[in-house]
């Protein structure tokens, strides 16, 4: 039997000819990524366990993006960034992107792509569950905890169980009111928050390969919401062109064999898709926007690794252009690059930044911000029993701050349409 793209990459990384799902194998890691929340404890474990002999296996392969708790007065959070800074200095880490400097990038998963660390055929581990985002580049990427990361930091190796794969094929042409967010919400509704546990989610089909890099990252990003080990899309010309502009590293493109084994295959025709939301308090609590239309909101939020990419703001701006928002609406660019592009991209000669400002939105600095609540002074954080619609990835109780708050997850189009009315609104009503 043939192999899936995930199996082929894991075979290469474990220096085997082939692997089968269920096998425990040791992988050679190409990139280890960490950030300000999990970096300091990872460094702590690495120092404790390796003692005086503690050595970074390959400095070029370690990438550190402070991004979670950046614009806060919380002294403990600031201490974490200081620990990273001191570590980067002591060990002369080349790929450290410090806060308060021109090198600061913002949310790690988007910065990994922008800075050319996402390379087809490679294996990337990160101390963040959304590390699966990088799978949009035809590579294996997954999240781990601090102990596993500390082990990688010292050895470059980690054990992993080869996952079974689920295949999601999206055919057809995306209607203009549908984005990748609607596709992944549909998947979550169908397989639930543990339907992907210890599995790979592979996405293909015309509709997937018609997506931009930003939109593909929305699909792979939320693979973890189904519990998946990784999300993956085979690299094509769009990926190759993207990485050639950002990296001179060599890459190898893997594709699933025709006779590869899948645990299950799902087929969708996107022409029939309608806008979806995940209702409180789980990303698999899926309903149509139409069914929850009219729910009064206290806040709208467009940001995070899932929904704060340039394409998300281009989508949102289409509706917001020339209008005013009816509830506080937060625009949080995932990366500093995206923030710069908001001043470059235009609609009818008006920059996206101006579109949002004129509409009364609050534009925040790039970071993870209120996607995960964060310290009490985090911009956009959910307070009390707020009702929020957001382009982010999780809506478990308390995820965005207050555990009394209700969070609806939706596409940037749905969130923008809702911002203009102050209640959950179907984007088709604006078309």
């Amino acid at each position: 039997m043939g192999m899936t793209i995930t199996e082929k990459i894991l075979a290469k990384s474990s220096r085997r000819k082939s692997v089968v799902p269920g096998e425990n194998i040791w992988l050679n890691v190409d990139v280890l990524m960490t950030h300000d929340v999990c970096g300091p404890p990872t460094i702590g474990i690495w120092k404790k366990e390796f003692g005086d002999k503690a050595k970074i296996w390959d400095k070029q392969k370690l990438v550190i993006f402070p991004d979670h708790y950046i614009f806060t007065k919380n002294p403990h959070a600031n201490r974490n960034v200081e620990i990273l800074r001191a570590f980067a200095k002591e060990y002369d880490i080349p790929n450290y992107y410090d806060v308060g400097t021109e090198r600061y990038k913002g949310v790690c998963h988007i910065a990994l792509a922008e800075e050319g660390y996402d390379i087809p055929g490679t294996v990337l581990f990160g101390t963040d569950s959304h590390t699966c985002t990088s799978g949009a580049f035809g590579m294996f990427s997954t999240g781990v905890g601090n102990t596993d990361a500390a082990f990688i930091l010292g050895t470059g190796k980690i054990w992993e169980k080869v996952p079974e794969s689920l295949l999601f094929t999206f055919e057809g042409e995306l209607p203009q009111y549908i984005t990748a967010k609607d596709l992944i919400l549909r998947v979550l509704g169908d397989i639930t928050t543990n339907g992907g546990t210890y599995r790979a989610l592979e996405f293909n089909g015309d509709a997937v390969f018609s997506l931009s890099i930003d939109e593909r990252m929305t699909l792979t990003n939320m693979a973890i919401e189904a519990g998946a080990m990784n999300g993956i899309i085979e690299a094509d010309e769009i990926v190759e062109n993207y990485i050639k502009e950002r990296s001179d590293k060599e890459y190898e493109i893997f594709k699933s064999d025709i006779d590869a084994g899948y645990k299950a295959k799902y087929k969708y025709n996107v022409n029939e898709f309608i806008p979806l939301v995940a209702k409180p308090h789980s990303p698999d609590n899926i309903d149509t926007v139409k069914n929850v239309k009219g729910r009064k909101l206290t806040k709208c939020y467009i940001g995070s690794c899932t929904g704060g990419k340039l394409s998300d703001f281009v989508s949102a701006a289409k509706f917001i252009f020339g209008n005013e928002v009816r509830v506080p609406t937060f625009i949080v660019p995932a990366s500093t690059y995206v923030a710069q592009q908001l001043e470059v991209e235009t609609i009818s000669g008006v920059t996206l930044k101006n579109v949002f400002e004129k509409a009364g939105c609050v534009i925040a600095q790039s970071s993870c911000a209120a996607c995960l609540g964060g310290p009490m002074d985090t911009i956009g954080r959910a307070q009390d029993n707020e009702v929020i619609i957001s382009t982010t990835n999780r809506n478990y109780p308390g995820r965005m701050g207050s555990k009394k708050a209700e969070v609806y997850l939706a596409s940037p189009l749905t969130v923008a349409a809702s911002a203009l009315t102050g209640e959950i609104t179907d984007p088709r009503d604006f078309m």
Partner: protein
Amino acid sequence: MEKSIKGKAFVLGENIDTDQIIPAEHLVYSLTDPKESQLYGKYAFSGVPLKESGLPNNNIPFVNGEELFSEYSIVIGGSNFGCGSSREHAPFALMKAGVKVVIAESYARIFYRNCVDGGFIIPYEVKEKLNKIISTNDEVEILLDENKLINHTTKKEYPLNPLGDILPILKAGNLFEYARQSGMIL
């Protein structure tokens, strides 16, 4: 590893995610400073809405008031326990609160790895929906060699799934000890 672990059960529902186990605003404390790291124990399960905390009667806080430890050492959950973020602070917080074992129908991958590779708590899987059968405050005992749970309150016994491949790591203490013992690292 002990042969038997005895304690009071704390029972929770399905899909207990890492934000409920340890809310994100607490992820800033040192994990190594003995005094500061105990705050993780204090706030363990503080994200679980009170109306869902301590089944079947609910409204039972896992940690009382300003205390730093929980009186419960065995947690019984449902399916997909530990879903959500990669924060290793989650099993660490449970350990600091005094939890020794979690029993659940299934786990999210990263949480499961973190329990084992960090050597914080033993994550047992079970086929039966024990969170519908066992009540918070029941006196329970886990017999590790026999992979069995005894409910001393109801005098009933339940089989647990063998720990399998992860047993050698748990026995060694954590992933590093395991790797040292097997000669992978010095």
